[in-house]
């Protein structure tokens, strides 16, 4: 067991964990942040995606040791005071969420994409989200949600 310090959704946190424990398990088991989902456990599906220091990562592939002194944002950190983040609002309005299990990762991937490229083309959206699998939507409504979010962000 070692002590790891990091910032999670704006709060400083110290946890005791085996150094190779997956960040995903620390989030879900130690911090009870169950919005981050496990889909495949091997970095293929993106359901466990979180932001570490602004980078989009699959938390199933990150040993907690690597989280030392980082800033982590999960789906729980996006809405402020019960008001949906514009990306969440667009996913809700456009039908970008069906079963909802890929949605947290998909929304964080969208956040990451729009941070880097506030006005993406459809092709750039397809490239930006291709590490996040969805089995329900066929992705069309997700693309619509991202395009609408880009407009909303631009209007901010």
């Amino acid at each position, binding site marked *: 067991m070692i002590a790891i310090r990091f910032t999670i959704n704006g709060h400083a946190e110290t946890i005791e964990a085996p150094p190779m424990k997956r960040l995903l398990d620390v989030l879900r088991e130690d911090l009870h942040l169950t919005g981050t989902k*496990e889909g495949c456990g091997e970095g293929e599906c993106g359901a466990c995606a979180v932001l570490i220091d602004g980078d989009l990562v699959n938390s199933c592939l990150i040993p907690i040791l690597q989280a030392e002194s980082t800033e982590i944002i999960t789906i729980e950190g996006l809405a402020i005071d019960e008001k949906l983040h514009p990306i969440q609002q667009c996913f809700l309005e456009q039908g970008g969420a069906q079963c909802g299990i890929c949605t947290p990762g998909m929304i964080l991937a969208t956040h990451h994409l729009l941070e880097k490229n506030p006005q993406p083309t459809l092709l750039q959206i397809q490239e930006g989200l291709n590490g996040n*699998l969805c089995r329900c939507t066929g992705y069309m409504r997700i693309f619509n949600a991202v395009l609408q979010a880009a407009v909303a962000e631009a209007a901010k």
Partner: protein
Amino acid sequence: GQSPPRKEGRAKVLGRALYIDDITLPDMWFGATVRSTIPRGRISSIAFDPAIPWHEFTIVSAADIPGENTIVHLTKDHPCLAVTHVNHAEEPILLLAHPNRSILPAAVAAVHITYEELPAIYTIEDSEKKEHIIWGEGEHANTFKTYLMQKNQTSIPDEIWQQADFIVEGEYRTGAQEQLYIENNGVIAEYSATDGITVRGSMQCPFYLVHALELVFNLPAEKCRVIQAETGGAFGGKEDFPSVIGSHAALLAMKSGHPVKLCYDRAEDMAATTKRHPSRTRHRTAVSKEGKLLAGEIDFAIDGGAYATLSPVVLSRGTIHAPGPYNWPYLTVRAKAMATNIPPHGAFRGFGAPQSIFALERHMDKIAKVVGITPEELRRRNFLATGDRTATGQILTDPVDMQHMLTRALEDSNYHARRAEFDRTNPTSTIKRGIGFATFFHGAGFTGSGERRLNSIVAIELTPEGRPQILVSSTEFGQGTNTILCQIAAETLHLPYDHILIAQPDTTLVPNSGPTVASRTAMIVGKLVERAAQSLCATLVAGGHLPQDYSPEDFHRAARHHLAQHGALRSEARYESPANVFWDDETYSGEAYPAYAWAVYVAEVAVDTTTYSATVTNFHTLQEVGNVIHPILAAGQIEGGVAQGIGYALYEKCLWRNGHLANNQMTNYIIPTTADIPPIHVTFEQVPSPHGPGGAKGIGELPMDGPAPAILNAIEHATGISFTEIPLLPEDIFERMTRIPDAGSESLEPAIAGPIFSEATA
């Protein structure tokens, strides 16, 4: 229709929706399953490695089952836990539970089981040979079910075959397909000697699990409580399988005295749970030189895996959809579900129909080629129309206009211009482009007398605050059950959508509105919600509390008044079979489905002759599903189904090695990503149906049927090669395109091949 936000959507986008693995109960333990490592054999010994502190574990074997050792679906052939023999790889033998989840994999690996191996079979052909009988005996040897479906119960007269201008033969195959919901199967079970069992979990059909638990535990239904948790995708993969994992977790809970969570990881879920049935379809068709279908013989076989599970009903839907939306003067379908030593196959969106429709729609393009007319013209000369009889003898009384549908779909997709353009550009391009289509129908609701047997009930009650709450066992797993049922109630009660509540399915609180399968929820359950809402409203009006023409405020005032006077208000509606509906299981004739959805799907493809990969570049869908209740959800159903259909056709291959799924991970079982999906255009032809609420029909399974044949028809246009098997991967295209030209069906010319067109005689 309107498109309000989905009921549980806010919780989902916030990451607050609680799926089963997000739930922790006090003193909860974790479960794991010890499975067979061989496809078939006799268990000779089980040893526990002394390196593991077994006293800390709860270990369950078949001897711990208080009731019957069976997972019941349609027959009792499927053991809950294997005792002396195993019939497929990954068959459950023992169950383990421990407070620490992370040490379970090592414990599973430390149970050493030895076997006396028996010969195993893996294909429909091996099963048909009956050299090794792995299931049943006599006429049922290796055969779960057979059907004979003949139009008018008449066999095809010899003269038809003798006088036909052409006889066209073909064989078509489809592979297994993994549902690949992103949330794996999982449950949490609790047991108490007084209250019985409670299972929470990811599932489609809570009452199926109640029924399974009654048998395994020999308990009455009221002591088997099942609660659906938020469910992260299902597609049929959580129709029958929760009966297995739910029974297992409950056995561990009973023996350990703790709540037990049993959630599979991806590798276990893919290796051990059900897939779409692989199929083989053989067509023999008599056609006139005018392109009229004279008679068809269809042999339809599916691989059911090691136990019957739902194979007989999957086979039934596949059989009834095998003739497609065409008028056959004579038709014979011989269908069978065969046993193999593969983990049992089960429900997957479409439920047998995608298999037989793939075969038929490829075969229709072949017939067109043989006769020398276009695929469009062949279909136009044979479409069913209003008033015609289907192959089961059902008269199509609701309006059907496939001629118009085809015209509109081909116009929307610019089919003729695109086809001409590709014909012009392909000869000088390494990228070969093509366009193809499929025309098809899909029956909504349970097959035949199924809805009458289900006898579904729906209730609406007033909450203490006077808000209407819908009580159904119909589950939400992404398709929009919660949302559309609330819309229907809101519309009927003249209340805003936000005022309607829907309860989480809990079998002790909700009536049995049937399983959430078979494209039945919007049409059948929706209609019951409409009727229950009407009756609720009528009660309030009759009580004198509600004027005929009322505002939402009037309603809530009346509701509170009624509650103050009577304490509660609950109205129910029970399914009533429409008059003069007749179905005969013996002759397979009558009203197969209450209503059909009709569709034309058009695919554009590009085949790269350098990499041999095929991609779908554009996709148009036109469908008639009655009135659309929620346009965004409905389009989402179509788009999602098309994406699964693209995967079925071009990417998703289950690779079996000695009965084990070799690619049981997302790394090498490939589903479409954002980068693989073309623009999917969704258009609805809205014709109000008399069967569903507000004129709606079923929609969920339909989009799974059309993409695969449309895509392979387009690939034939692009390459001139008639592929007959899916999945069609680049290596398959490479193998065929680099082969020295030989006599595949694509080289058939009437003058060369003579009047019988099959690969064998070409």
